[in-house]
């Protein structure tokens, strides 16, 4: 056939880019309706998110004063003027620290075992399913389970007892332990992804140089997936910080930190107290306090913290472990494990 140029030849690999434009005006009406619906939904989503953030910012800033960040809540009938939320912030920090410090080593160990050892294989599959069950279980159920365990007599030293000997079961220890369960699937998933992306030649090179498997893992692989571990931990922390149900069930609904006993750190951890999330819940119309202003202010602080963590995760994934560009995709693939940032 003669090489008459009816249309310019497209460059290799990209038919779409050079094809004549498919004008939506040429589509039948129902397709056009679909097209505009998509646009409406997309822009609508942006607007809704913007509205939420802007509303929280406006309301929060109007009620937030820097003094509130450093004062403890003061119980009084006129809640709208008294006290701040130092205790809830401390509570959030304690729970997040406890939770991640239990979950991170455990999660990394599980991920390493699942991806490097995997013997016996029925155990590996069971562990994977178990992690999925925990990831999908509602946080209220996890909280109830935690309460069952920590209300046992032999664990009474981790919380407090009534004078009659019944163990209360509610304390920062309990909450931290259950929060670790929340963050565990995220850390495991993230670390496994990172380990899976590492090329085999890394391991082979290390073995060729005579290193044992344990040393290889410890020195080479773990340092290589450090960004993934960090991502998982940050995601886990975000999920812990945003959770309310577990805190409400395992830490009660007080307004101030209530340590148990005189020992400095252990007493605090055995006691109960608020976190930002229960503080917001209690001050909203659904809780006892008639102080929506404080709820807004605390909600704003909470939102900032969560956004900050999100930003850290984005920054970490954009740097990426071995595959820098796959960061965003990887973050998306982790979203299945983030279904309940809160409860």
């Amino acid at each position, binding site marked *: 056939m003669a090489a008459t140029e009816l249309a310019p030849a497209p460059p290799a690999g990209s038919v779409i880019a050079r094809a004549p434009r498919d004008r939506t005006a040429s589509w039948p009406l129902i397709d056009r309706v679909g097209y505009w619906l998509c646009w409406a939904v997309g822009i609508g989503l942006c607007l809704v998110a913007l509205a939420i953030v802007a509303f929280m910012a406006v309301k929060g800033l109007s009620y937030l004063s820097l003094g509130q960040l450093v004062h403890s809540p003061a119980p009084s009938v006129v809640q709208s003027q008294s006290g701040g939320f130092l205790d809830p912030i401390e509570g959030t920090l304690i729970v997040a620290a406890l939770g991640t410090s239990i979950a991170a080593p455990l999660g990394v160990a599980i991920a390493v075992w699942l991806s490097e050892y995997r013997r016996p294989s029925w155990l590996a599959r069971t562990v994977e399913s178990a992690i999925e069950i925990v990831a999908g279980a509602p946080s209220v159920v996890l909280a109830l389970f935690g309460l069952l365990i920590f209300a046992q007599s032999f664990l009474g*030293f981790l919380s407090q007892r009534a004078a009659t000997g019944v163990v209360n079961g509610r304390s920062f220890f309990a909450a931290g332990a259950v929060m670790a369960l929340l963050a565990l699937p995220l850390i495991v998933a993230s670390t496994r992804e990172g380990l899976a992306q590492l090329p085999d030649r890394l391991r082979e090179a290390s073995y060729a140089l005579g290193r044992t498997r344990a040393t290889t893992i410890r020195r080479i692989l773990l340092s290589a997936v450090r960004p993934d571990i960090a991502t998982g931990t940050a995601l886990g922390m975000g999920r812990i910080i945003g959770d309310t149900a577990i805190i409400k069930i395992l830490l*009660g609904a007080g307004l101030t930190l209530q340590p148990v*006993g005189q020992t400095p750190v252990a007493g605090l951890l055995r006691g109960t107290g608020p976190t930002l999330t229960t503080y917001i819940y209690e001050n909203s119309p659904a809780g006892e306090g*008639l102080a929506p202003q404080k709820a807004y202010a605390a909600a704003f602080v909470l939102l900032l913290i969560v956004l900050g963590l999100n930003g850290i995760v984005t920054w970490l994934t954009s740097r990426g472990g071995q595959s820098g560009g796959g960061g965003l995709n990887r973050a998306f693939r982790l979203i299945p494990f983030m279904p309940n940032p809160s409860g």
Partner: protein
Amino acid sequence: MRAHRTLIVSLILAVVLAATASAAPKRLLIDGSTSMLPLVKKLAQAYHKAFPKLPEPSVTGGESDIGISDVAAGRVDIGDVSREHEAQDPAGLYGYKIARDGICVITNNANPLPSLSQETLSEIFTGTIRDWSEVPGAKVSGPIDLFDRESTSGTQSAFQNIFLGEERKITPSATAESSTGLEVNAVAAEKSAIGFVSLAATIGGGVHSVDYQGVQCTLPNAKSGQYGGVRNFWMLTKGPKKGEAAKFIKWIQADNKTVHAIITSEWIALN
């Protein structure tokens, strides 16, 4: 090796915690009436300030009937109850009166109802009157949004006895709130709402308290006896009071300056 080290460290930690746990004096657990909650919380704080060696009693809510069943079962040391003894209460409980409190009928601030007679009040709460147009002095229109308390509430029992009488019951279509705080919130949020709550809870503003039979629902009126809706605050223990609970109750009933100041700030002292 590292795993063993962590194991040893955590074991030591556990032993230390257990030791400190058994050494610390047991903490008083108090729960029950949500109307008494602010009062008992303040008393607990002052108690801890007066005796720093003793741990501050833990005070939670849950409503009077829950307080009764918890103290009868031994789950708490003291149960707060804001109503009088009733026939179906468990036996073996000893009650110690610590204060008195008024009950106010409240409406939303957008509806500053001037006064209610006993007749109108009982018709509203039993559901005979359903619309604000039938209530003289109402500043809002439309159906009445009635707020009740749960059946476990001492305030509800006291309200029924004092304001409605024995035969009449609050209509079941009323929305039942489970604590004093929630009741105040609910009425403050709805323009056409009406409910009842402890006098102390109305002191901060936020809701409008309605005069009953021409008498304003204020602390001086309740103290002087002019305002009829007043009820007792009781602290219950299983068997005669003993131990830490006895110390706390005795300290309250001794009515020293601090205690008296706390009680008279929003409630009525016994003397």
